[in-house]
């Protein structure tokens, strides 16, 4: 009986193909919107998490801030040594200095930043080498004119396909040889493009670009078993002591935890996704109302058919089941088409925004189940109305 009811419903839908399609459009759009939003939200979260983890998890970044008198006090080598040696659980400490420069190659110039770093910085900040090599110990010690360029520099100054390795580029008046290309570092602590930078041995940058031994900021990577709050407290205590701050005086430096940023951003994206998906879900409900509307029209249109079915012995429950099945089948079709549409949309949008495409079986299944449920809920009233028609009246209906 159920099989027959299903076949009947399919026939009825095929009989009015165009109308059936238009009827389910609301469901199609609703399902497609919900799935696409959730899929893209997930993709964005994963993408952001990947970019942030490129900073290195379990990394603290320490930088000076102005005190109440507006004095800005940088760090020095001794601070780095102290952190490395006096705090338990510290794995690497890497200081850096930076200076804005103009990079010139082949007659083209490009505004960028030179960062004085060490190989330890590469470890602490998880900077990978895409091409070429890191600095040698000798280059670090001597402060040689060698550099590792970021992806943005590669794109802006070099002809695609040519290797920059071994080329001489000029940074302001200093000429240096490219020994490596860094992998994309993703978004940084601020809103700057970390790929728009030239890395050089820190000694060289201090000597030739900034003219002192200061350290702008430094990164501390630490053992994953150490609690990040305990680590932050230890660093703050040590630095307050080294910077001779009295009790009651504010810190003239700041310590940020990349893991905390990570969590905040991920949860923000999660909340946004939920809000957008909820808005999209409203269109599902609107789609359900559309189904109800057309089912009511259909019941009126087919009043005589209902009368015939009742005359030949269909029970009210059987008439109700027929119309309910039609509504549910319509909605399930809408759900399926919506899922296909969402798949296409998600793939296309992910590609356009270079996000990863992650198929989420749960949201697809859930959306399908909800569309079937909408069929039941919004099909119920029209089906009930059909089943309660008076057969004599129905047979007389024009």
């Amino acid at each position: 009986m159920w099989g027959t009811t299903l076949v009947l419903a399919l026939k009825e839908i095929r009989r009015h193909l165009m109308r059936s399609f238009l009827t389910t459009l609301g469901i199609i759009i609703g399902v497609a919107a919900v799935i696409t939003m959730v899929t893209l939200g997930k993709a964005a979260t994963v993408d952001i998490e990947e970019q942030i983890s490129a900073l290195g998890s379990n990394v603290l970044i320490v930088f000076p801030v102005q005190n109440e008198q507006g004095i800005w006090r940088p760090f020095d080598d001794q601070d780095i040594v102290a952190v490395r040696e006096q705090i338990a659980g510290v794995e690497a400490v890497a200081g850096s200095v930076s200076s804005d420069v103009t990079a010139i190659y082949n007659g083209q110039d490009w505004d960028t930043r030179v960062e004085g770093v060490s190989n330890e910085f590469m470890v602490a900040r998880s900077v990978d080498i895409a091409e070429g090599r890191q600095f040698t110990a000798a280059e670090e010690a001597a402060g040689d004119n060698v550099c590792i360029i970021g992806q943005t520099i590669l794109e802006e100054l070099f002809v695609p396909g040519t290797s920059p390795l071994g080329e001489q580029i000029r940074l302001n008046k200093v000429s240096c040889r490219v020994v490596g290309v860094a992998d994309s570092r993703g978004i940084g602590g601020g809103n700057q493009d970390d790929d728009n930078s030239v890395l050089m041995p820190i000694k060289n940058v201090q000597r030739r670009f900034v003219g002192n031994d200061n350290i702008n900021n430094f990164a501390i990577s630490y053992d994953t078993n150490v609690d990040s709050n305990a680590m932050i407290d230890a660093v703050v205590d040590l630095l307050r002591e080294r910077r001779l701050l009295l009790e009651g005086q504010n810190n003239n430096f700041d310590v940020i935890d990349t893991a905390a940023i990570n969590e905040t951003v991920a949860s923000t994206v999660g909340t946004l996704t939920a809000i957008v998906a909820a808005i999209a879900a409203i269109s599902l409900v609107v789609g359900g109302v559309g189904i109800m509307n057309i089912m009511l029209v259909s019941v009126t249109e087919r009043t005589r058919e209902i009368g015939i079915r009742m005359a030949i012995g269909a029970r009210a429950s059987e008439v109700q089941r027929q119309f309910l099945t039609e509504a549910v089948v319509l909605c399930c079709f809408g759900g399926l088409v919506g899922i296909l549409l969402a798949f296409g949309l998600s793939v296309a949008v992910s590609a356009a925004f270079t996000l990863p495409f992650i198929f989420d079986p749960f949201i697809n299944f859930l959306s399908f189940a909800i569309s079937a449920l909408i069929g039941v809920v919004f099909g119920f009233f029209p089906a009930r109305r059909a089943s309660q028609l008076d057969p004599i009246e129905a047979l007389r209906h024009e």
Partner: protein
Amino acid sequence: MSGEPIIELEGITKTFGRGAAAFKALRGVNLTINRGDFVAVMGASGSGKSTTMNIVGCLDTPTSGVYKFLGNEVQSLSKDQRSLLRRKYLGFVFQGFNLLARTSALENTELPLIYHGMDKAARREAALKSLDKVGLVPWAEHTPGELSGGQQQRVAIARALVTDPTVLLADEPTGNLDSERSIEIMELLADLNRSGITIVMVTHEPDMAEYAKTIVHFKDGLVERTEYGSKSGNGHMHAGQEGVA
């Protein structure tokens, strides 16, 4: 020739509406129809013929009186039980054919069997057998729109027959047909009656009533008189009532 009573109406009344607008369509109908009978119900328009047929067909319930179908009182049955009674024992033929549009003759004929829970192959076989009885097998795949009125009514008869009903109820089955098609339909009904099926038919045409074995005349919601012929077919009886629709 006549067997045991199948349909017994005793003092059936039907009032439509309430209060001042109340209208007594039936005012105490007594009628017994036996197995194997072919009854023609005649009478002026508005005399209560269709109302009686609807009650006999369990599509409507009387306001008062007793209706026994095969000895069972129908008014005690629930709505669903009346549906099952129609499904099992009754076949309907209407003036307006009432076929499903854009649905083939075969599928129209199969329709009642869906509610008998038959599988597709069995439905098809039974429907073709039924279409064969009305001579429409070559038209099985045609939709009502592609068939003449007479052919459509024959499909309707095939649909009514497909469940092997005990009683065939036909309310003005030839009302929408010209006289030639009407005669074809009447001969078909007379044939079916000869093969054992009980037929109750409403008509206002004396020529059509002549095919019946019994003619019941209605007037103002009451049975005015009943004529008994010798047999169906050529027995010429004279309907004394004006057959105005």
